Structures are given as structure tokens and as C-alpha cells.
């Protein structure tokens, strides 16, 4: 760290790369925070976590006991153990007791992207509520056709305020806060309602992949396939592009200004390696990632970066449909009524449980119930074949992925642990063990370089960079040190 400061002093390092370096150094030392406890008021599993996008200060959590709570992650409410442990109690909580509260589990709780005055919760009781943060009153209520799995709002949107909702229904609905109506119903995902029943038992358990259905046959238990759309994500480069991942294993791209979807990701349609995303001026990541680059890819670096810059420059104004000259004509011809062969493509075997677009909007990470994590090149719609060393992913629930700043790391809940993968190589960079049950969601606050994770064990854990040595000297009342008596 001191070297970087010295370099910055001498002007060798530019301010931006200096901050990037410091930040990535800090991220590399993420560990469970002993000095910051978020006191969860929830009595069931935490399904959703989000820090507000405006201030980076308020953490919103939604839990399966139909409660949602907001915490101030910057200012602690009280201290314990002589100021050593900062306790962050929730600022408020809305739960079943609230007159307009949800009846069943909240599956998704998100902030209104523009300010912290509103937040949106989606619940298994088929409702999406829009809450006023200051009065904790419901200001808008949408009744959905089934359980709500995931809600999303575009952080770029300037012309619309639509909540995209993935529900049990195969159709994705866009709820307009301004009018209080469904503005769009996007149909394209297929239902795969298959019931396997037998005479002995009618226990209904969800199955998501082929192995499990085989097991179901073997053990003669009634299973059903979870149906609907588990995850929705707005593009981070265009305010009109919505990505949805359904239980049919398809990831669909929608341009909300037009009918039908314009892109279905196909796992077999792959591209060897990836296009380099690192602009020359933020070269910090290069050292990390260049190892994985093949020389052939390096040659391509320049034109691609050029293209990216162009995409970034007018991404918000331009439809992504028109941006691809090579394939655009075909697409445009096919769209909206795409070829049925293309339309049947799948991105995962089993359901798509998590989606996360990288910060620049060029890539998309998807997690599936087949325990795979895939990195997609949005421009080409290709599977980049990066092999992420996931061991197993939770299959029954949507999981929430998070990416670090500049998207070099992706944080993925892998059963009871959270793993940080290098996005470009797929290598595990860190494993965060702390939860005692499955982890459902994680959120990375790039402002403080802190990771928040929530799981079935009702805990919200804070993972923060290790403190400076100077801080550690101030250890509180009882010092932690060796105690050898003999």
C-alpha cells in the first residue's frame, strides 16, 4: 500500500488507477468482520440483500418471515465489548404485523434506484409492494399471477420506472410505478410443468435437473418442476434491455420497446475464450487476468476495446439490436418471430437461478440449478466457456450474485459458503465460510469494499477488508494473545 502511495505522490500513478489498486488490494483481504455486526431482526432465511445505489449506506434485507429491514451500514447503533464490536441494528422493519405487510416470504427487496425514498418488495404471497421509506407505508401494490421470485429495476432508466418481476408464471411482467399497471407482459419462456406422481406419496418436491428427475423416478417420489421465471436483471448498458432467466433453462434478452425477445442465449453456441475488456488506462486487472489470456486473444484486444468504448459512449441512446453489424441483419430479420430452433436454445440444464450483468454491460454471469456458472458475451450471445470451479449451487431458490468493482471478481453463494471467482479465469480467489446454512444472497458494496451475505441461518454477515495494523493495536478490554502456561 505504501508503495502505491509513494507512486501516487511522485505522480507515477494516476488517481483512478491508484484508487483501483487500493480497492483491489482491500478486496483481496476480505474476511469476516469482527468489528461490524448486523443484528438481523429476521426469524427466517434472508432472501435478498441490497445496499442503496445512491448513498451506499442503507442495506435493505428481505427475509422469508415476510419481513424487510433497513440498516445503516456506516453508522453503528451501539457498541459492544468496549467499542470493539459495532452493532448495526435495523433502522426499521416491516413485517407481517404491518397492516399492508406481506403474508408470506419476501423473495426480493430492492431499492428504488434513484433515491432511498422508495423500496420494492416482492413476495410469495403474489404481491409486489412499493414502500415509502420514510413513512414505511405501502404506496403501490401489484397483484401478480403467482409467487414473485425476483424483482428488478433498471439503474440507468431515465425514461421509465418499471419493475420487472419474475414470478411463478412464465410471463415476465413489467409493473409501472407511475401508473400502477402492468405495462408489459413478456411471454417467451416456456413452462415445463411436469408432474411425476406415484401412488404412494404425494410429497411435492421441486426438481431442477435431469439427475434429480432420474432419482425421483428411482425412488418413486412425486416431484414437480419449478416453473416460471426465477431471475430478472436489467442491462447495465441500456435502459431498455431486460434479461430474464427462466426455469426452462433459457436466458432471454428483451428490448422493452419491441415485442418478443431478441436474443436467447445458447450454451452450445460458444466462443473460445473471451474478448478482453480491460481498457488500457485501468491496467490493474491486467496483471491478474493476463495470465489466463491466450496470445491469440491478446491480438484481438484493440479492436474489441474500441468497439466497447463505442458501445459505452452511446449505449443508453442506442438500441443494442442495431449495434451488431455482423449479426444484426439476421437478428433483425428474425426478430420478433425468431426461428423456432433458436428460440428453443437453453443456457443451463435446469433452471436459471441467478443473473448478474457486469458493470460495463458487456458480459452476463448466470448461475443455474445444474451447478454451473456461465459467463456470456452479451455482444455475441456466446458462452465464453470459462470454467468456474463451483462445487455445487443451491438449486431450489433464486440466488443473488454480486460482482466487485470493475467486475474482476464475482461472488457466488455456493451452498453454505460464498466463493469469489475470478470472472475471466474462473479460478476461486477466496472462499468465505461463516454461514451455517445455505447462503441465498450476497451484495458487494464497492464504496466500502464490503461484502454482505445473507443465508438460511438468519444471519447477515459483513465481510470487510482486514483492518490496518494501527487499528489492531486498539484491541479493546481483553487482549487476544498467546497464553502458554507450560
Amino acid at each position, binding site marked *: 500500500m505504501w508503495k502505491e502511495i509513494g507512486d501516487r505522490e511522485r505522480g507515477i500513478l494516476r488517481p483512478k488507477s491508484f484508487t483501483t489498486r487500493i480497492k483491489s488490494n482491500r478486496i483481496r483481504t476480505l474476511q*469476516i*468482520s*469482527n468489528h461490524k*455486526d448486523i443484528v438481523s431482526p429476521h426469524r427466517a432465511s434472508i432472501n435478498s440483500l441490497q445496499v442503496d445505489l445512491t448513498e451506499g449506506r442503507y442495506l435493505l434485507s428481505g427475509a422469508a418471515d415476510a419481513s424487510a429491514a433497513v440498516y445503516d451500514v456506516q453508522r453503528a447503533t451501539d457498541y*459492544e*465489548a468496549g467499542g*470493539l*464490536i459495532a452493532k448495526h441494528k435495523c433502522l426499521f422493519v416491516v413485517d407481517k404485523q404491518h397492516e399492508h405487510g406481506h403474508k408470506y416470504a419476501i423473495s426480493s427487496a430492492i431499492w428504488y434506484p434513484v433515491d432511498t425514498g422508495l423500496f420494492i418488495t416482492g413476495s410469495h404471497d403474489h404481491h409486489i409492494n412499493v414502500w415509502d421509506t420514510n413513512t414505511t407505508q405501502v404506496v403501490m401494490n401489484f397483484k401478480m399471477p403467482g409467487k414473485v421470485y425476483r424483482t428488478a429495476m433498471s439503474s440507468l432508466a431515465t425514461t421509465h420506472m418499471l419493475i420487472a418481476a419474475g414470478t411463478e408464471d412464465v410471463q415476465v411482467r413489467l409493473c409501472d410505478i407511475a401508473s400502477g399497471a402492468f405495462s408489459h407482459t413478456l411471454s417467451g419462456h416456456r413452462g415445463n410443468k411436469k408432474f411425476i406422481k406415484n401412488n404412494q406419496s404425494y410429497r411435492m418436491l421441486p426438481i431442477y435437473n435431469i439427475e434429480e428427475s432420474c432419482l425421483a423416478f428411482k425412488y418413486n417420489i412425486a416431484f414437480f418442476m419449478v416453473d416460471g421465471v426465477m431471475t430478472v436483471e436489467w442491462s447495465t448498458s441500456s435502459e431498455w434491455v431486460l434479461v430474464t432467466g427462466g426455469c426452462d433453462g433459457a436466458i432471454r434478452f428483451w428490448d422493452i420497446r419491441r415485442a418478443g425477445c431478441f436474443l436467447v442465449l445458447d450454451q452450445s453456441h460458444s466462443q473460445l475464450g473471451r474478448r478482453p475488456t480491460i481498457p488500457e488506462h485501468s491496467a490493474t486487472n491486467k496483471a491478474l487476468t493476463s495470465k489466463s489470456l491466450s496470445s491469440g486473444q491478446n491480438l484481438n484486444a484493440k479492436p474489441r476495446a474500441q468497439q466497447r468504448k463505442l458501445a459505452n459512449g452511446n449505449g443508453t441512446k442506442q438500441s443494442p439490436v442495431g449495434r451488431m453489424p455482423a449479426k444484426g441483419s439476421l437478428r433483425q430479420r428474425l426478430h420478433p418471430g425468431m426461428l423456432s430452433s433458436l428460440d428453443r436454445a437453453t443456457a443451463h440444464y435446469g433452471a436459471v437461478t441467478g443473473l448478474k450483468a457486469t458493470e460495463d454491460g458487456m458480459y452476463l454471469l448466470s448461475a443455474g440449478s445444474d451447478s454451473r456458472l456461465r459467463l456470456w458475451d452479451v455482444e455475441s450471445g456466446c458462452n465464453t466457456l470459462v470454467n468456474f470451479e463451483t462445487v455445487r449451487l443451491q438449486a431450489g431458490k433464486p440466488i443473488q450474485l454480486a460482482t466487485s468493482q470493475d467486475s474482476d471478481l464475482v461472488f457466488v453463494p455456493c451452498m*453454505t459458503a460464498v466463493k469469489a471467482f475470478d470472472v475471466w479465469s474462473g479460478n476461486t480467489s477466496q472462499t468465505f*465460510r*461463516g*454461514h*451455517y*446454512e445455505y447462503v441465498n444472497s450476497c451484495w458487494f458494496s464497492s464504496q466500502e469494499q464490503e461484502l454482505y451475505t445473507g443465508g438460511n*441461518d*438468519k*444471519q447477515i*454477515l459483513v465481510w470487510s477488508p482486514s483492518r490496518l495494523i494501527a487499528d489492531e493495536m486498539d*484491541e*479493546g478490554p*481483553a487482549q*487476544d*494473545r*498467546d*497464553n*502458554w*502456561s*507450560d
Partner: protein
Amino acid sequence: MIMEEGREKGGGKVLSLIEKATNSTAAEVDPRLLKAIKSVVRYSDMELRLAANTLLDLMKRDHSQVRYLTLLIIDELFMRSKLFRSILVDNLDQLLSLSVGFRRTLPLPAPPAVASILRSKAIEFLEKWNSSFGIHYRQLRLGFDYLKNTLKLQFPNLQANAARIQQERAERERRSREILLKKFEMFKDNFSSIKEEIMSTIDEIGECLDIVRTNEEFMPLPPADDEYFEEFRSSELLQIRLNTLKEGEKVHENSDNKVVFDALRELYKLLETKHLVAVQEWISVLLRVEVADNRFRDSALKELIDIQNRLKSVKKKCEESGCALPNTANRDGEEDDFWEEGKIGSLESERSTVPNKQDEAFSMKVTPNKFKNRTPESSKKDCNDNEILSAEGGETNLDPLRSKLLAEAPVMNWGSFLDNWGSNRKVLTNQRGLELESHWGRVDYDTVIPAEKMPELNVHATLYEEQQTDIQPCRAPLSKGGLCQRRDLRVCPFHGPIIPRDDEGKPLNQNSLKEEISLDLGIDSIEQLAKQAVKNVRARDKEVSNKREIDKKSLKRAKLAKIREHNETVLRDAALTSTSRSASIGEDMGVADGEKPSARNKKETLSSMLHKKVTPKDRIAQRLLNSRAKDSTTRQLTLGEDANYREAFPNQWQ
């Protein structure tokens, strides 16, 4: 990998030590090995890391004993080394799931007995770790919180218990201090009056003593005879002599000074029971009380001690002066004798009768009394030496007689008849508490029941108690060795009818095995026959016809027995192919050849712990659930039922 590294670098000493320490069946880690591990690990971080990884690996062993010993070592190191802690807390969830076994997919391995100890120890350790290092390690807090609040495991809660006890003690102390302070205040107020009272008593005693002395002054004192002393070399005799001399010196009570003596006795009693005790109590209060102003306390204490000394000296004077208070002493003695009978209970009741609850005072009162019984004190000796002696002598004489009588005496249950045991009195009928006011006519209050009628009325009724018969154990040889200890009346459900067997469990009488069912009948009939035969020989002259009849009968019986025997053999052959015994014979052979003898002799090892110990319950369950066993049992029982029928109609059955 790390292990290999360690070995390469010349370390790894700790590896073998840990390996050795955990490879044991003991309930604790060998302290010497533990010490060695600690000393190795203490000076080398590399060894410590190595140890941590090894221990975590060992926790994965599929054996609860290994895990248990490993956990003990982990706890030792955890409490000592910071580095070890930081390594361990990163894997705490793993450690907990391996030691507490809270994940359903990862239950604790065999043996189950050790597994439960492992679990409780792990929970206890977690609590300890959390209380001492929780603030430094979020993982510890998390683990503790999860086990406690989510899984709702019961923690021993040592810390909180200790704190509660501490608090209770503090509370008690505070209360007692308050009480003391209150007492002190009271004492402060009453001090002068108390002092006056005591002084007046002392003065009175002094006056009384003076009176007594002046009265007796003219009594000539026998001179101390030096020559006399020399003759008695023996110390005991000398002692006796001295005592008698002293006795002579003493003033004796007579009709003249009886009043004085009475007063003296009363005062003495007052002094002993009230003032001395009170003074002692006040002293103890003063010693224990904590007040800001010490001056009064110190001065009062001084005065009190003075008073106490004076009281003691006065008391001594009293005792010496011979007023020795025979009455009180005597009463004490009586009481002591009385209390001596009941031992602990009486002590308790005595305690409750003592009005003063102060412990010191109480103990002071009680212990001397007890002493007096054992060694009669001088005061007691003065007055009733002889009595005691005679009483003691009597007791010693009585003892053998009493024991003899006791040995002879019948033991009776308690009953109302004991009221007039051995009494020869007439009993007034109508004066026993029930008043019949001419209810059915005139009541004669003087009616008596004559003495000779009494035993009739007091006939002692006893309940018949069935004599405990000794049910013979089955004693059939078991497949695992030993004999079946089951006690059934007739048929053991596993080994068939109960028959006499030798020490190895072999039936003594092979025939009886065959004919067990009808054995009783058979033997009976044979015996009967023999008897009858003898009788018949003797009474041949008289009852020839009778004999013939019996002959016929015996013939018939013999015939029947023959047929029956045939039936039995057929039955037995059929049964032998399917009884549990025959099945177990084969097993027995196999087992005996294999591991059984070795298992018995072998030293207990880790792997032997894994073998499930077959409890009698298991064995019984196995036997009972064995369908063949069920069948054979029912067959045996039905056989018994059928026996009579078959005996009557043997031909029909075949």
C-alpha cells in the same frame, strides 16, 4: 500437503505425537503426550500450523474416540495459542459439524457412547471459547449463536451459572452485613444497660459466695499430708487422693445455706445461659461488623472482652466453690442420656429447641454436652459419681444379657396388641375414651374384661407371606459363551424346557430333555407305581382284587407311555430341524472359530470400540423377533397343553 512440507523441513515431530495421543481408548489424552505436543508447538509456528491441520484432519476420522481425543487437544491449544485460534475459527463450521454432529447428513460416527460425550464436550468447549475469545472472533460468536438460537441446543451455561452463584453470594453477604449493622446499632443503644445487668449479676454472685464462705470459714481444713503423698506413687491413686482432698475442702450444702445456694445456682444459670452467650455473641458481632467509626467499636470490644474474662473467672469461682450446681448438672446429664439414644435426629431436634440461632453459640452449647457423656466432667463427678459408675457397670452387665435376650426375642410387627404385651391386668371396658351416654341403656363404667380373656382378644394376626421360591435359571449354553441366566418357571422361550444342567450347560439327563413336557406326570406315575407296589405287597392278603386292578392300570399306563414316547420322538425330530437351538448351534461353531476367543483376550483398541456391544436387550430382541424362536416357543407351550389330551387319547393323535 502441508504435512509433507512439514516433514521435509525436519518438523513433523508434532505429527507423530498427535498420532500417538489420539490412538488410544482412554477417556483422556495422555498428559505427558499433551505436554510434549504443547512444548513442541509453542516454539514453532510451523509446527503449530501443522498441528492445526493435522487435528482438523483427525476430526474427520470415522471414529468418535479419535475425534474426542482430538477435540481435547484442540481445546488445549485453542485456549493457549492465538495463531491456532485464528486457524481454527476459519474452519469452525466444519469443526462444529464434526464434533457436535448437527448436520443431518453428517452424524457422529460410532461408538455412540463416545459420540454423545464428544457432542456434550464440544458444546461445552464452544461455550467456553465463546465466553473467553468471543469478542475477538466473529466466527465463534456466530457458531455459538447458531447452535444456541437456531438449533436450540442446550448449553451447560457454566459462565452464567457461576455469575448467578456469585451474585447470590454477594446478596447473602450484603444481607448479613445489614443484619450485623442493625445488631450493632442495637448493641450501641443497649450497651450500658447490658453492662449494668451483667455487673449486677456478677456482684450478686460475689456476695453469695462471700456469704457461703463466711458461713463455712470455721470448718477446719484437713492439712495436706506430704508423707501421705509419697506413699502413693501411682499417679492414678494420687489423683484420687487429691480429688478427695479437694472434695473435703469444698463447702457443702446444708439446710443453713440452702437459700444462698439456691440463689447462687440461679445466678450461675443466668450467667452461663444468658450473659456468657450474649457477650460472646456481641463480641462476634463487633468483630464482624464494618462501620465507619471504629472508636466505639474498639472500646466496646475491649470492655466486652474484659467482661467476658470476668464472667469466666466468676463462673470458675462458682464451680470451685462447690455450689457446682448439682441440679443443673444433673439435669444436663439426664438430658444428655436422653438425647444420646436418638442419634442424628435428636441432634436436629435439639438444634431446633435451642432458642438462639447463632451458630457459634449453638455449637458451644452442644459440644460440651456431648463431651460430658463420654467423659464425665468434674462437676458431674462431684455429685453422682457413684450413680454413673453403677449405671455404667449395669449397662456393661446388661449388655450381654440384653443381647442374649434380643437374640431370643421374636420379631413382631407393630400392632395394638403390643400395648399390653405380657400384662396380666384386667381391663376396664368402658373407660377407653369412647363415651356412651346411656345410648343403649345403662352403661356400667366398672365393667372389666378379665385378664384371662385378654389374650383371646389380642390374638395376633399375621399376613401370610409367600415364601420366595428360588426359580432355577435356564443355564443353557449360549452362543457367545456363558449360560443363559433367564429364570422361567417351566419353559425358557429360547432354550426350551428348563432341565437340570451341569456347569457347562449340558443337560444332566438326556431322557428328561426328551420327555420334559410330560416329565412330571411320568415321574409321578412311576413313583406312584412303586409306592403302590410296596403297599400292595403288604396288603396283598387284604386286597387282591385291588392289586389286580392296579396292575391293569399300570399296564395300561406303560402302554400309554410307550406310545407317548414314540410320539415325542417324532415330534422332537420334527422340531430339531427348526428350533432356535439347532439353528444357533451352527452359528456358535462359526463364531467360536472366528473372533470370539480373540475378542475376549484382545486389548481394547479403537477398532474394537466400533464393534457394537451386543447388549442383553439386543440379544433378546433378536431372539424374540426370530420367527423360528417364536414358532418353537409356541410349539413348546402348545405341547404342554396338548399333553393331557394326548395322554388320554394316544391312539387318536397318531
